[in-house]
């Protein structure tokens, strides 16, 4: 198998907003920079598909800046191993790629948190961001009946997107309570941009029910989804639909920083003021340092890029913007904290680990994820616990104890290259 070498001053992993902002700042300061991503194009999740067909002004402005910068992009590359500090190994569908760098910026973003409930493994039950990604990827959604459920502001953004593409969005079920949401809205006062975004979404979504304190208790169907059963207070009812788009807020993608030994703090990568992790010359920015949204990701990316280019004073000038966005992030995460009732959605025969088909009842006798893995193979399939990990943490309080290479399923031939 052929092996490519990519050598640069700064390697950025992740071509979402945080990674792009970091790369832009690095290139601006004359350092050579490579951005690697496992997707076929730039944008990450929130700007998926916008590199070619930009809808938002902010994304357009950033992509314009990126196009005019000297940045090398390496798409479709899955990083799976560290050879030594300053050297990472990745694979594409066709070859193996060795990256050599002085400094590393990790911007691997976040994924949706999925909670198991009866029927959640049925085809056409997807993540909220998951369904949106498929529609951006060419899935016709016009006329399809969609129920959106789970938690977090992503549900509203997805509802808006699907509605504009002709979907018949029946309702949005948000698990958090109305008072918690009201406190969150109040905390936004003073942030003009966020308030205007919220108001615009609200008017665009008029006609779609937004039910707080409401969540799915079952997805029904035989070989694919037919309906979803929802609960709100003491009321339980069934809604027929073609798709259930369901995600319970977001969790950071931590596998790569954990592989490199970066210290974590409260389920996110711990960083100093300059976005540097506990490992020297390894920076981290965006959702990987804690869920905080687009604006925080961008400014963290800029700070990381400047710091990795030894422009600490310039980086310092952005601290106040970041601190303001961090206050928003704190309010956001407390508003959409999961209620404990969601722990009882799972039935004894509900599958928790979808790769290995491990049921909830098989996990109840274990006292740690390690024990569960040894007894049941929970979290040991192709996704390596990326989906069930957040679920078992919520249900049992278990956390991943270690991350070992390869962090992603890789070809034997690629691993031998290491």
């Amino acid at each position, binding site marked *: 198998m052929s092996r490519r070498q990519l050598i640069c001053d700064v390697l950025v992993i992740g071509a979402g907003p945080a990674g792009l902002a970091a790369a832009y700042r690095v290139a601006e300061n004359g350092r050579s920079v490579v951005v690697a991503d496992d997707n076929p194009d730039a944008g990450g999740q929130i700007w998926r598909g916008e590199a070619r067909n930009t809808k938002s002004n902010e994304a357009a402005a950033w992509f314009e800046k990126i196009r005019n910068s000297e940045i090398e992009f390496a798409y479709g590359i899955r990083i799976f191993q560290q050879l030594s500090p300053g050297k990472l190994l990745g694979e594409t569908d066709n070859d193996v790629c060795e990256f050599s760098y002085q400094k590393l910026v990790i911007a691997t973003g976040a994924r949706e948190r999925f909670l198991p409930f009866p029927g959640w493994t049925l085809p056409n039950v997807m993540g909220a961001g998951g369904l949106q990604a498929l529609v951006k*990827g*060419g*899935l016709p959604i016009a006329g399809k009946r969609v129920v959106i459920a789970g938690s977090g502001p992503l549900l509203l953004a997805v509802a808006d997107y699907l509605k504009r593409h002709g979907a018949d969005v029946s309702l949005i079920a948000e698990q958090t309570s109305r008072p918690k949401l009201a406190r969150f809205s109040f905390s936004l006062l003073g942030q003009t941009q966020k308030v205007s975004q919220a108001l615009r979404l609200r008017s665009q979504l008029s006609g779609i029910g937004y039910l707080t304190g409401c969540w799915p208790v079952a997805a029904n169907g035989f070989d694919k989804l037919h309906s979803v059963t929802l609960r709100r207070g003491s009321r339980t009812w069934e809604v027929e639909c073609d798709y259930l788009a369901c995600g319970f807020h977001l969790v950071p*993608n931590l596998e790569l920083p954990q592989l490199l030994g970066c210290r974590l703090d409260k389920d996110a990568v711990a960083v100093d003021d300059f976005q540097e992790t506990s490992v020297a010359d390894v920076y981290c920015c965006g959702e990987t340092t804690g869920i905080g949204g687009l604006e925080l990701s961008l400014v963290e990316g800029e700070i990381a890029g400047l710091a990795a280019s030894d422009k600490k004073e310039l980086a310092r000038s952005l601290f106040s913007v970041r601190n303001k966005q961090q206050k928003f992030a704190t309010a956001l995460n407390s508003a959409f904290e999961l209620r404990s009732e969601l722990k009882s959605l799972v039935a004894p025969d509900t599958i928790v680990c979808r790769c290995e088909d491990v049921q909830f009842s098989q996990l109840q006798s274990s006292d740690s994820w390690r024990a569960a893995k040894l007894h049941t193979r929970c979290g040991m399939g192709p996704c390596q616990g990326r989906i069930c990990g957040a679920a078992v943490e919520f249900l049992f309080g278990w956390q991943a104890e270690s991350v070992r290479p390869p962090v992603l399923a890789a070809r034997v031939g690629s691993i031998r290259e290491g």
Partner: protein
Amino acid sequence: MPDTVTVVVNGELVTMPVGSMVAAAVLKAGVSAFRKSVSGQPRGPLCGMGICFECRVTIDFEPHCKSCQTICQNGMDIRTDE
């Protein structure tokens, strides 16, 4: 340059906009079950972003391809449930 591509999903022709993902083409073809789980249950895409591995299909005789991260190319042969 044409702005669509045509792929073959389980023997049926499906036309998609250029740049579409294989997962979208499979769903457009009316197929919801992309694969069988280890205990034989039907499964389809979940995360849409290459993390969950639920949307695996066989593309041009190569098994276990993530259909949500593979772009449709003209004439691609896509098979589910293998």
